[in-house]
C-alpha cells in the first residue's frame, strides 16, 4: 500500500482509477481522462496534488541561502508572489524544479514528490554555513482548481476574506488567510489557483467543490494539460543530466553579475559553447508521439522527452530535445516507421486557444 493523501477516500468513492505515483496511491482518472481534460479547458476541474512536498525555509539567512541554492533569483519577485525555479547540481543538471513563495519573513517551497528524499538531503547539505531552518510540512494538502471558471466557482464557496483573495489575485500572486495559502498558479495553461491547506480543510473543500459541480481530475489529465501548455515534467523533460538551458528553461536562470549560485559556472560554460534546444513537435498524420522516440532532422538526431495525444488539438504533440538550429520539418521514428512532424515553439494551448507557432 502506498502513501495516501487526506483525499484518498473521496477519490475511491468517486470511482478513481488509482495508480502508484512516486510511492503514493493517486488517481490517474475518474472514468474519462478526455472528459476531465476538456472540463479544465472549458469550465473548471480540480486536482489533488497533496503528494507534492511542501518545505518552509526560515531564518535570517533564508534569502541568501535560496539565492545560492536556486538558478532563479528570489529577489526577482516581491513579497506575495511565486517564482518558478530550478535547483541545480554543480554540473548544472536539474535536481528538481520547484515553486518558491516569497512571504514576508520566510519562504515556502513546493517540490516534486518523486524527488522528495534527494531534495531534502540536498537542501540540508547546502544549508551548512547558513542560519536557516528547512522544515517539511507533511500535514499540508494541496488542491489545484483550474479552468476559466475555476476562481468564480471557488470563490462562491468561500467566506468573504478568502473569496476576496481568490477574486483579487494577480497572476502568480498569492495570499494567506489563516493557515491557507492561495496562489494564482497552476500546471494547466488555464486560469486558476492552487491552495495549500491543512488536510482536514482539504477534505471539506473538495466535497464542497464536488457539490458545486467542479470536476475531479486525475494525473492523466494533469499531464495532457501541462504538455499542451508547454510545461516541463521533472524526470521526463529534464533530470540531473540535463541543464535548464537544454530543457527550455533558460528564462528561469538569472545570470546577474553579483550572484553566485550552484551550477552557475557550468551553465556559463555551456552557454558559451552552445547547447541543444528544446522544441515542440506536431505530428502531421495519425499516431501518438511518445517519450524516447527518435527525432531525425537535417541537423542530426534528437529525442522526444514527453509526448501525448492532445485532446484540445485532436492530434499528437510532443516536447523534444534536438540539435541547435533544428527548425521547420523533421521526422520521428515510431515502431520502425518515420513520420513527418513540424517543429514549433511551445506552448501549444493557452486559455483554451491554440497558440503554437511554426
Amino acid at each position, binding site marked *: 500500500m502506498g502513501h495516501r493523501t487526506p483525499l484518498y477516500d473521496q477519490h475511491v468513492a468517486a470511482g478513481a*482509477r488509482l495508480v502508484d505515483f512516486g510511492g503514493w496511491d493517486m488517481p*490517474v*482518472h475518474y472514468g*474519462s*481522462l*478526455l472528459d476531465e481534460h476538456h472540463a479544465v479547458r472549458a469550465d473548471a476541474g480540480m486536482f489533488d496534488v497533496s503528494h507534492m512536498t511542501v518545505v518552509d525555509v526560515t531564518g535570517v539567512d533564508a534569502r541568501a541561502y535560496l539565492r545560492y541554492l536556486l538558478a532563479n533569483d528570489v529577489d526577482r519577485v516581491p513579497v506575495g508572489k511565486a517564482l518558478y525555479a530550478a535547483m541545480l547540481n554543480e554540473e548544472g543538471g536539474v535536481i528538481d524544479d520547484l515553486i518558491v513563495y516569497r512571504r514576508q519573513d520566510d519562504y515556502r517551497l513546493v517540490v516534486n514528490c518523486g524527488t522528495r528524499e534527494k531534495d531534502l538531503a540536498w537542501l540540508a547539505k547546502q544549508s551548512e554555513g547558513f542560519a536557516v531552518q528547512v522544515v517539511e510540512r507533511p500535514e499540508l494538502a494541496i488542491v489545484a482548481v483550474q479552468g476559466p471558471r475555476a476562481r468564480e466557482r471557488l470563490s462562491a464557496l468561500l467566506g468573504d476574506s478568502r473569496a476576496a483573495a481568490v477574486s483579487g489575485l494577480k497572476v502568480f500572486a498569492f495570499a494567506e488567510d489563516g493557515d491557507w495559502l492561495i496562489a494564482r498558479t497552476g500546471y494547466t495553461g488555464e486560469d486558476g489557483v492552487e491552495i495549500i491547506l491543512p488536510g482536514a480543510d482539504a477534505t471539506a473543500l473538495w466535497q464542497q467543490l464536488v457539490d458545486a459541480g467542479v470536476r475531479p481530475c486525475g494525473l*492523466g489529465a494533469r*499531464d*495532457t494539460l501541462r504538455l499542451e501548455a508547454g510545461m516541463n515534467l521533472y524526470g521526463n523533460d529534464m533530470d540531473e543530466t540535463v541543464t535548464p538551458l537544454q530543457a527550455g528553461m533558460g528564462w528561469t536562470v538569472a545570470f546577474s553579475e553579483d550572484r553566485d549560485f550552484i551550477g552557475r559556472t557550468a551553465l556559463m560554460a555551456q552557454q558559451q559553447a552552445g547547447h541543444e534546444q528544446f522544441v515542440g513537435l506536431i505530428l502531421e498524420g*495519425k*499516431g*501518438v508521439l*511518445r517519450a524516447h522516440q527518435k527525432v531525425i532532422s537535417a541537423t542530426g538526431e534528437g529525442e522526444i522527452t514527453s509526448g*501525448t*495525444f492532445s*485532446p484540445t488539438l485532436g492530434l*499528437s504533440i510532443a516536447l523534444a530535445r534536438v540539435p541547435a538550429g533544428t527548425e521547420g520539418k523533421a521526422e520521428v521514428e515510431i*515502431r520502425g516507421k518515420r513520420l513527418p512532424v513540424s517543429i514549433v515553439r511551445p506552448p501549444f494551448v493557452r486559455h483554451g486557444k491554440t497558440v503554437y507557432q511554426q
Partner: protein
Amino acid sequence: MSDIRAELRYATSHEWVRLEDDGTAYVGISDHAQDAMGDLVYVELPDVGQQLEVTDEAGVVESVKAASDIYAPVSGEIVAINEALEDTPELVNQDPYGDGWLFQIRLNDKSELEQLLSADDYRTQLDSED
C-alpha cells in the same frame, strides 16, 4: 465488473474472437482491456490481405497514456479491417464487442479456436490478475 460475452473466445492477451458461419472471424479487444487502457485515441490495424500467424503483432491500440500491441489470436488472412476506427477510435471504448471490432480474419484452421479461452476461463484469468 467487466462485460464478458459467453459466445466469444478470448486470448490471454485480451483479444476476443467471434466465429462467423463463412469461416471468418471478427477480432477485437475485451471490455476489460478497453477499460484498462482508458480513452483510445489511435488504432493501427493490419493490412487487408496480410497473413498472420498466432501471436503475430496485428496492430496497436493507443490511449492518451499508453500504447498496447494487438496480437493475432488465430492464424489466417486479414479480409477486412474496421476503417471507422481511423477517425473514431473511441468506438472501441463504447462498444468493444460490436462497432469497436478491429479486424476480420479468414481462419487457416478452425481448431485453433480451441486453444483460446472460454468466457469462464477468461473470467478466471481476470480474477487472478486483480
